[in-house]
């Protein structure tokens, strides 16, 4: 249905935009092992995005590439967190930490979706995201407990990305309708477990939840930050130069 497609678009766009960000790290990471690890996470995110976009597109007669390359900024449905710049490695880790714990809760619930396709994609995704959780949590502990510099950086990293947490857990009319139909759950219902699990790691790392105001968001309604335009300009440039071509 249109609702399910719109919902799949949101999750797909999250993964697509994050994969685009993470892809920039490959060949620039702090060590080769991280080129590989961040590359893996990017590949997983892109893989999930492709599944969800393909499913969303099916409802509108569009392919994953139609959706990725030929929509404009206000037609993207990703939340603001996913388009935040990579910053240094600490910012990337802080962003990934939040993303992975959020996605794990989401996909865990979507495995039981009444929509068989969403359930199937999520069942596969949740296993991969479990690894992402572990990867980012380990780095949060290492950076927080490493050197003075790394501790200062991870604190600053969390400060920068934390304003975009609330948006992930916002309910709206679409999620309300879909939750009613058992396709998904209300995002707000994922928050407690997210808080508990991230809180455990933060506590172990002796980090505090940053006391920064939450941004108003709006990504699910196509209202984005100034970053998305640049991301799309780069991502879409070649495909748009050759409309209709196949690759």
């Amino acid at each position, binding site marked *: 249905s249109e609702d399910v497609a719109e919902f799949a678009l949101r999750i797909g766009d999250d993964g697509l935009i994050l994969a685009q960000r993470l892809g920039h790290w490959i060949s620039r990471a702090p060590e080769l092992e*991280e080129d590989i690890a961040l590359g893996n996470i990017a590949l997983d995110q892109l893989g999930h995005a*492709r599944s969800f976009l393909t499913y969303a597109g099916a409802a509108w007669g569009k392919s994953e*590439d139609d959706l990725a390359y030929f929509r404009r900024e206000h037609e993207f449905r990703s939340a603001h967190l996913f388009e935040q710049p990579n910053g240094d490695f600490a910012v990337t880790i802080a962003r990934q930490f939040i993303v992975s714990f959020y996605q794990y809760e989401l996909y865990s619930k979507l495995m039981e979706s009444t929509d068989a396709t969403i359930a199937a994609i999520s069942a596969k995704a949740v296993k991969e995201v479990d690894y992402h959780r572990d990867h980012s949590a380990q780095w949060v502990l290492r950076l927080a407990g490493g050197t003075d510099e*790394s501790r200062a950086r991870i604190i600053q990293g969390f400060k920068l990305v934390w304003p975009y947490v609330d948006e992930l857990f916002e309910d709206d009319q679409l999620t309300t309708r879909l939750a009613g139909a058992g396709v998904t759950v209300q995002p707000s219902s994922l928050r407690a477990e997210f808080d508990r699990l991230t809180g455990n790691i933060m506590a172990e790392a002796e980090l505090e939840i940053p006391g920064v105001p939450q941004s108003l968001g709006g990504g699910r309604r196509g209202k984005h930050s100034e970053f998305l335009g640049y991301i799309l300009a780069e991502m879409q440039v*070649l495909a748009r130069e*050759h409309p*209709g071509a196949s690759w």
Partner: protein
Amino acid sequence: AAGQAYFDRIISEDSRIEPRDWMPAAYRKTLLRQISQHAHSEIIGMQPEANWITRAPSLKRKSILMAKVQDEAGHGLYLYSAAETLGQSRDQMMEDLIAGKARYSSIFNYPTISWADMGAIGWLVDGAAICNQVPLCRASYGPYGRAMVRICKEESFHQRQGFEILLELSNGTPAQKQMAQDAVNRWYAPSLMMFGPPDDDSPNSKQSMAWNIKRFSNDELRSRFVGMMVEQVRVLGLTLPDKDIRFNEETKKWEHGPLDWNEFKEVLAGRGPCNSQRVERRREAHENGAWVREAAVAYARKQAQKENAA
């Protein structure tokens, strides 16, 4: 003396030298240079391809490209590990690379200026690499040979992906086909030069062959490669930018036109379009990552202390 005798026997039996075995200093040095150079090539070689990850024109291609560049990081790791068994640390090799003291395959000093370069690199550059590397799977030094086995498997996968990119472009719009032909035109000669200078200008080859590191001469490998490409380019519906290619019925070998060894030397001497950029990017990544590596070490040390105390 016992060591030398054992070494000579192993080589003459075409068997394998392992890290703990005695080996001549020159053998160690030659291998170290070759393996580290090979490792550096994998790492620097990530850059020209990473250059198109964010702009790949379809999600499928983006995914394949990401996986490929990531594989190259993996190859670098295998090879650095193999080099470490000869007594040099990865850190030291990285420092040498950043300081501009270490070599890597000169072909990565050319820019990737179109998407079709992803195809041409896969088809030609990885193709040449495979021709070079398949015989290295039997190299007399065990860790090197075993690393090459793993690498070759993945490389042939990469070559096929490159071929597919070009095939799709060649069957695409006129602009796409031209993009493909242009990329083949630019990468053809550099890929032939990847096999190294002509045999009569390659003084070290003989010793490497005597030690069972190298198995075929540069020209021999180059000729084989040309033969393979001649066949495949027909399937692609493209042409090789070399009107002198011919099969010599007498020698039963493929011959190619003259190569601009002058440019090759210029690029080797650091005058390629991207030399400075490639090393700088590596330097930047390494220096920007220093605090992360230090943090990981510090954390591990603290954890170990805690466990000891407990």
